[in-house]
Every structure is written in C-alpha cells, then in structure tokens.
C-alpha cells in the first residue's frame, strides 16, 4: 500500500531512524505526537510513544504506558528481550501486540493506538489506546417508534456491535470483520446467526464485497449501491436501519446484517418489498392495531404514487365515470384556472416536493413557519387567485403527506408518481394501468440475493402472509419466513398456542 516503505529493511533497530521514517511518512501532520521518555532507574533505556492526539485516551497513555515504564525498575535478562518484558510485565493493557510491519504501525497510529518504540529493538508494540469522542446513544430521528426500545446506532462500530450482542446472547451469533476502502480503511462487520442464515447468500455477499475497490466508504449507501441486485432500480434490494432491535429481529429471521464503522446505518439483506411496510412498532404494538396500520401503509403507498395520475385520468379522460355532483364541483373549481390539469399537477408536485425538501434542510425552528407559509398562505392564495384548483391542491397535498409514511421510499415514490402521471396523461386510466403493470413486472423480476423481491406477495398463500399484509400475533408465527431461505424454519419449538391455553 505505502509504496517504497513496506520493505522490511527500512525498519531498523535504531529508534532515531525508525522515528525519522515515521516522521517522513506523517510529514505535515502535526497531530502525531512523538513522546520520548526513559526509565528512571536505567536511563539507557530510551523509549518513544507515538500516537495521534485527539483519538487516544491520554489517561491510558499516561497511567498504563508511560508511568509503568518510567517508574518500574526493569530488570533485563539475556533470555528475555526487553520488548517482551514490556509487553508481558510492565505495560498494563488489555490489547497489546508486537509487530515489525510498517503497515500495521501506520494503521495503528491512525486508528488511535499508541506505538511504543524502544531503542535497540526492531519491533514495535502497539497498545490499544483508542478513544475518540462518540455521540451518545440516542433515538434515531428517522426511525422513531412510539413503543419498544429507543436506542439507535451510533457512528462507532464497536458500540453498535455491543448493542446487537446484548440483544442476542448466543454463540451462534457471528461477527466477521473486513476492511473496505483503500483510503478510508473502513471496518465493516458481517453479522449473522449461524444455522439460520443461508450460506449461499452469505457466500454471495462475500463475493460481492470482494468486488468493491472504492477508496473511501463513508456511509452504508456506498456499499449498498455496489452490492444491490438491480443497480438501476428505484427500489432498494438491500435494507438499512438505524435501530439495533430491528437488526436483531432481522437476524432472527435468518437475514444477514452489515454494520459499518463511521455510520449509524446498518445494512440488512436480503431485503424484500414488504419490508418497506414493516416497522419496528408493528412488533411492539397489539397485532390488531399493527395489522390495521400496515394495511393503511400499503394502501397509502398505492395512493401516494397513483392519486395524481388517477385524478388526472379521471378528470381529463374518463369524465364519464365521475358521478355528476363530483364532476360539477371539480368542473366548477377549475373554471378560471389557466393551466391544464397535467401542468397543474406537475407544478404543484414540484412546489410540495420543494417544500418538503426545505423542511428537511431547514433548521427545525423555521420548519413551523415554513409549513404555515407554504401550506396555509400559499395554498389559500393560489386557490383564491384561481391559479390552481382546490381539488388538485388536495390531491397533491394528500399525496405528499401519505408519502411521508415511507421515508425510505420517498425518492422512489416521487419518481413513480411522475411516471404514472405521464402515462395517465398519455392514455388515461389505461395508461396508468399499463404503467402500473410495468411497475409490477419490474418488481416481480428483481431479486434480492436470489430471493424474489415480491415474495411472498406473489403467492398470496396465507401461511406466508402472516407477517406481510397483516401482522399476525406472535404466538401464531411459528415459522420463519420461508422465502428468506432460512435453514431452520421452526421458530417456536412447540406451537405456542398450546402454551397460551395452558396459561389460561
């Protein structure tokens, strides 16, 4: 990686030379601290601790590295090398390694470890002293739930893993580390439960990860776009979440999770279409309410992509199927509106989308005034001035509100809405049906790591629908979803409905 320096002969026994080498590498990087010190009993023993300030724990360096070395009377024997004495007897640390590799040393410094050199040794000690400021664990903004666990992932990989580990205390839960990105050296971790996760999917994931040669991986999405099955599709075939409880739930279903360092977003896969409509709240809420809200969500999705298109098709092509009272009131409201319906829909869509985007970007205290100006004043004025017709305003407004239900789908639904609108403008409701058919053909074509994306909606048999359109009670979901290809389908050892009866 670091051309020219990785040859071993550059690394000598001289502290001075070695330090000079590092200083050359880290030229113009003033955060690297080179701390020289000696043993108080034997000033011939010269040491240097090299670390990057800001990402190290000063206390560890002071108390556990420098203090023992300076204060202890180190007895040297011929048998044991000084470096081993340091490693085994002097330095107090839970993670300490000996290395001769320059690469490792450089990485260690950059990762916040302390490198200890001493004069006369060709090896260095890498002592774990990582400590950088992390965000406290808080509830994720985008995936709020009214019930259930509140914690969300942070930017620290180890803390994230800890959160998952704490939920699944089994030795079958595996964490495989990899490093991706030649410059960012991002650590990623593949989590799965052995015996549940499909080996074929795991192998497929590994090969796809092997193909990534980007120099910097800053967020989960960098990877997502690489490993996604249908790269040009609007739909995600890889899921992401900020919640450890969601990750744990997916792992239990036999899915695989990918947790990255430096981002609070974990990736889960395979990801199916229905997962857009499953929220963590569903599982913590009463199954009646959860089922109803899930149906509402599905329904809203269809509405949010098709309301403007259907409205346009009905008012501009198929006036015959609008009942007279409605026809007259729509016609009345459009009386002095200058724009054709399609243009009206496009402009209003643009206005609402920009308002939504402004709401996301603007600081939160402007948000309220934004909504007042946007929704109330602009809307009212536009209708009064006969700029836009009230029905269209209602339709587009509703569309946008319904779209807020699926933050993960917002981009896709916006584009779908446009496509459907265009086809509706072309051939009315038939164009809309054609476009919708096309959408479904596409959805039925794509797969997520070999699993058909639309499963289990394509078979619509009841056993598989328990956790899709509705959320069945927990005691009723005896099996893991078949379509994930889980090896071990039985989730509850003995159908818990029996237990239910016993309890009664």
């Amino acid at each position, binding site marked *: 990686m670091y051309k020219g320096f990785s040859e071993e002969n550059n690394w000598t026994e001289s502290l001075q030379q070695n330090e000079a080498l590092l200083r050359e590498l880290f030229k113009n990087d003033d955060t690297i601290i080179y701390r020289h010190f000696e043993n108080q009993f034997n000033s011939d023993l010269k040491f240097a601790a090299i670390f990057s300030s800001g990402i190290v724990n000063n206390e560890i360096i002071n108390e556990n590295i420098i203090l023992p070395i300076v204060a202890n009377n180190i007895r040297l024997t011929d048998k044991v090398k000084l470096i081993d004495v340091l490693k085994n007897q002097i330095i107090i640390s839970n993670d300490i390694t000996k290395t001769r590799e320059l690469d490792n040393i450089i990485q260690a410094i950059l990762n916040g470890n302390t490198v200890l050199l001493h004069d006369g040794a060709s090896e260095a000690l890498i002592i774990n002293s990582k400590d950088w400021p992390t965000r406290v664990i808080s509830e994720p903004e985008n995936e709020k739930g009214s019930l259930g666990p509140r914690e969300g992932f942070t930017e620290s990989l180890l803390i994230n893993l800890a959160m998952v580990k704490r939920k699944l205390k089994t030795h079958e839960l595996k964490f495989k580390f990899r490093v991706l990105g030649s410059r960012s050296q991002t650590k990623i971790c593949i989590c799965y439960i052995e015996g549940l996760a499909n080996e074929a999917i795991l192998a497929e994931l590994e090969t796809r990860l092997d193909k990534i040669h980007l120099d910097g991986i800053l967020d989960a999405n960098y990877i997502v776009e690489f490993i996604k099955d249908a790269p040009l599709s609007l739909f995600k075939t890889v899921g992401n979440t900020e919640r450890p409880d969601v990750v744990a739930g997916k792992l239990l279903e036999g899915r695989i999770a990918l947790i990255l360092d430096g981002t609070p977003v974990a990736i889960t896969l395979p990801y199916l279409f229905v997962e857009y409509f499953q929220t963590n709240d569903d599982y913590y809420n009463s199954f009646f309410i959860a089922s109803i809200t899930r149906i509402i969500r599905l329904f809203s999705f269809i509405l949010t992509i098709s309301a403007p298109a259907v409205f346009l098709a009905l008012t501009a092509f198929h*006036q*015959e199927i609008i009942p*007279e009272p409605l026809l*007259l009131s729509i*016609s009345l409201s*459009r009386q002095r509106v200058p724009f054709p319906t399609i243009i009206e829909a496009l402009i209003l869509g643009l206005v609402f989308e920009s308002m939504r985007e402004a709401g996301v970007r603007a600081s939160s205290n402007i948000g309220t005034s934004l909504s007042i100006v946007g929704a109330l004043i602009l809307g009212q004025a536009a209708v009064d001035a006969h700029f836009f017709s009230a029905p269209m305003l209602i339709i587009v407004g509703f569309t946008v509100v319904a779209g807020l239900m699926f933050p993960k789908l917002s981009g896709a639904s916006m584009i779908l809405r446009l496509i459907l609108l265009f086809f509706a403008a072309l051939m009315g409701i038939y164009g809309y049906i054609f476009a919708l058919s096309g959408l479904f053909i596409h959805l039925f074509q794509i797969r997520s790591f070999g699993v058909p994306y639309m499963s289990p909606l394509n078979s619509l048999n009841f056993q598989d629908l328990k956790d899709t359109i509705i959320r069945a009670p927990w005691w009723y979901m005896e099996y893991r979803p078949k379509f994930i290809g889980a090896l071990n389908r039985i989730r509850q050892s003995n159908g818990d409905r029996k237990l239910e009866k016993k309890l009664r």
Partner: protein
Amino acid sequence: MRKNYAKFLFLPLIMIFLISGCWNYREIEGLAIVAGIAVDRGIHHKYLATMEIIGFKPGQESEIESKLVSGEGDSILEAIRNSYNISGQMGYFNHTRALIISQDVAKMGILPITDLLFRSPLIRVSLAILISKEKTAGEVLAARSLNQPIKSFQICEAFAVQQKALSKTAEIKVFEAVNAMGGEGTDLFLPTVGVISNQGQPTMELSGMAVFQQDKLVGLLDGEESKYVLFIRNKVQEGILLENMDREANATLISFKILKNQTWIKPVLAKGKPGVKIAVKTTVDIWELDSPLNYDSEQDRKMLKSQAEKELQANILRIVRKVQQNYGTDIFGFGSQFRSQMPELWKEIKPEWRDYFTQLKVAVKAEVEIQKSGMAIKSLKVED
C-alpha cells in the same frame, strides 16, 4: 457502439410524450356537459335538437345554471353538431340523463334516435327516453324546474319519486326501449312529461305514458291509466290507490297506500283461443277516508276488501280494453308471456299476434289485502 444506441432510444421516448400529449386529453372545464336533449321537428330540416347544457355563472361564487342551445339537421347527429356553431363548445353526452321526444317526431318513428343512443359509445344506455305532452319537446326543457337547476336531472329525480310514491309512470331506459321494440310479443311505452302551471309559472311535470306501435307513437295515456298499465306490467312498487266506494248510496272515496304489489300473467288457451289471466295481489294501508264511516267490523272490512278488489279489477280491465281497441299494441307484454310460457303456441300465433291481441280475452283477478288503517282507530264523527 451500444451506448450510442441508448442515446437515440431516448428520442422516440420523449417524442411519444411530446407528440402524443393530447389525443383524448380534454380538460374537464372545457366540456359542455349535456344534461338532456329534446328532439323536435325542425323548420328547415327534419330535426331540431335542443340541448340542455350545464353552465357556470361567472363570478366569485360560481353557480350552476342550465343553458339551452339548439340546432337543426336532417339527422339527430347533424342537428346536435349544428348547435355547436352556436355554443362554440363540443357537447359531452356521457352524463346525459334524459332524452325528450316531441309527439311529431315520435309519430315519425323513434328508431333513428334509439339507434344513435345505443350505437354511440359516448352515450349511456341507462339514459331515460320520454315523450313530451306539449307541442314541442323544447318547451319542456325551457320550463322551470323547482328542485334542481338542471331540468334533466330534475326529471330523473321525479322518476325516483314516482317509483316511491306515485307509480303513475315509469322510467324506460334505452336498452329497455330497445328490448321492448325489438322483442317478440311486446310493444313499447314511454313515460310522458308535460308542463303545468305551478304558482303561475310553467313547470315541468312527469306523468302518464305514450303508447307505441313498433317505433311510432299511437297515443297517450294519462297518469291514472298508466298506473294500471304498470299494475299489469308488475312495475308498481308504491303508490296511491283511490277507490270509489258505493256504500248505501254514499259515495265514499278511500285512499289506499300501496305497500307492495305482485302481478302474475298467465296465458291460457281456452277453446282454441288464446287468452290471458291476470292475477294481482296488492297490499295496502288506509291513509285517507272522506266519510265518517268506519271499517272496523269484520263484515265491513270484508266488504271494503271486495269492493276495492272489484274496483281494481274494473280499472285494470278498462285500460286493457282501451289499449286493445284504440291502439292495438301490446304494451302489456302479453305476447312475451305466451312466448316464455307457451313457446309452441307462440310460434303459431306470432305472425298474427296483433290481431290476436285485440281479440284477446283478458280475465283479471285482483286481491287487495288491507293491512293497517294508519294510527287512527276510527275516523272522526262530526257531531253537532
């Protein structure tokens, strides 16, 4: 190379949207929604079509108003199209609810009109066809309507009221008219609409029916007569039955409210001659009595029942006679009863059915079941 093709693919795709944008695209506010059509004899051409268009009064608080526009032509379509010259708007016929035909036109035959109606994909076959009792059909559309600003819609509401409260006429939709005209052993009748003076202003009124032979108008029946036609056709749902009771030389008028009615027609072959037996079963309530007489004894009730039955039978028979003698057209659908119940006989008599019909022996058996007398135990006796 591949990439270049992809670029060119976008062109036709964009073109599709750009060029095609508006084939069938028509803005809703640009439609002249035609609520009703009236067809008359024209002065210069064969037909004069008057269309009632739903218009919007300009102003901040826009309101719906009815506008009339007419055109002449040698065919109905031409007449309608010629009216666009005046209105400057294309008519939109999918919400057309009523078609009123003047008697002159109906006498010439309504086949061209019904043909237009069931041929055009733009017109719904649930459109109601009516005959104007006035001189022209346009008059009806020009009259005032009370409830709805749109007169043709008012007609449809009136039909609903007829069905619920009066049964003096019935709505005939295009496909029903076609079935009646084209079907074997049945002739067409259509509801009639007229103009009467209400509070000094001409207002439209729905009542009575027009009798057709094939597709040509042959006569009109008034509302009372139509009711008995509907009795025979088993189309009475609710309504009022007025009975004159001759009781001890006291003429008494009783209003019954019809609760439900069922009619059976049975074709019979008596002595080689076809005949028809009509059985009517009506359930009624007493709603109005114009004498202090009470019908609370068993005997009285029986008498009332038999009187009412007799009266109903006589009325039904009278209308059958009238149609048989005056018009000779089978608006009761007796022939179709022969056809469905005695198909072999029907095949024989079919060619001369019209003759058979005028000679047809009709026997009516009515059964009136008086259920309740309202909230009153008895009627009030006026004392000094």
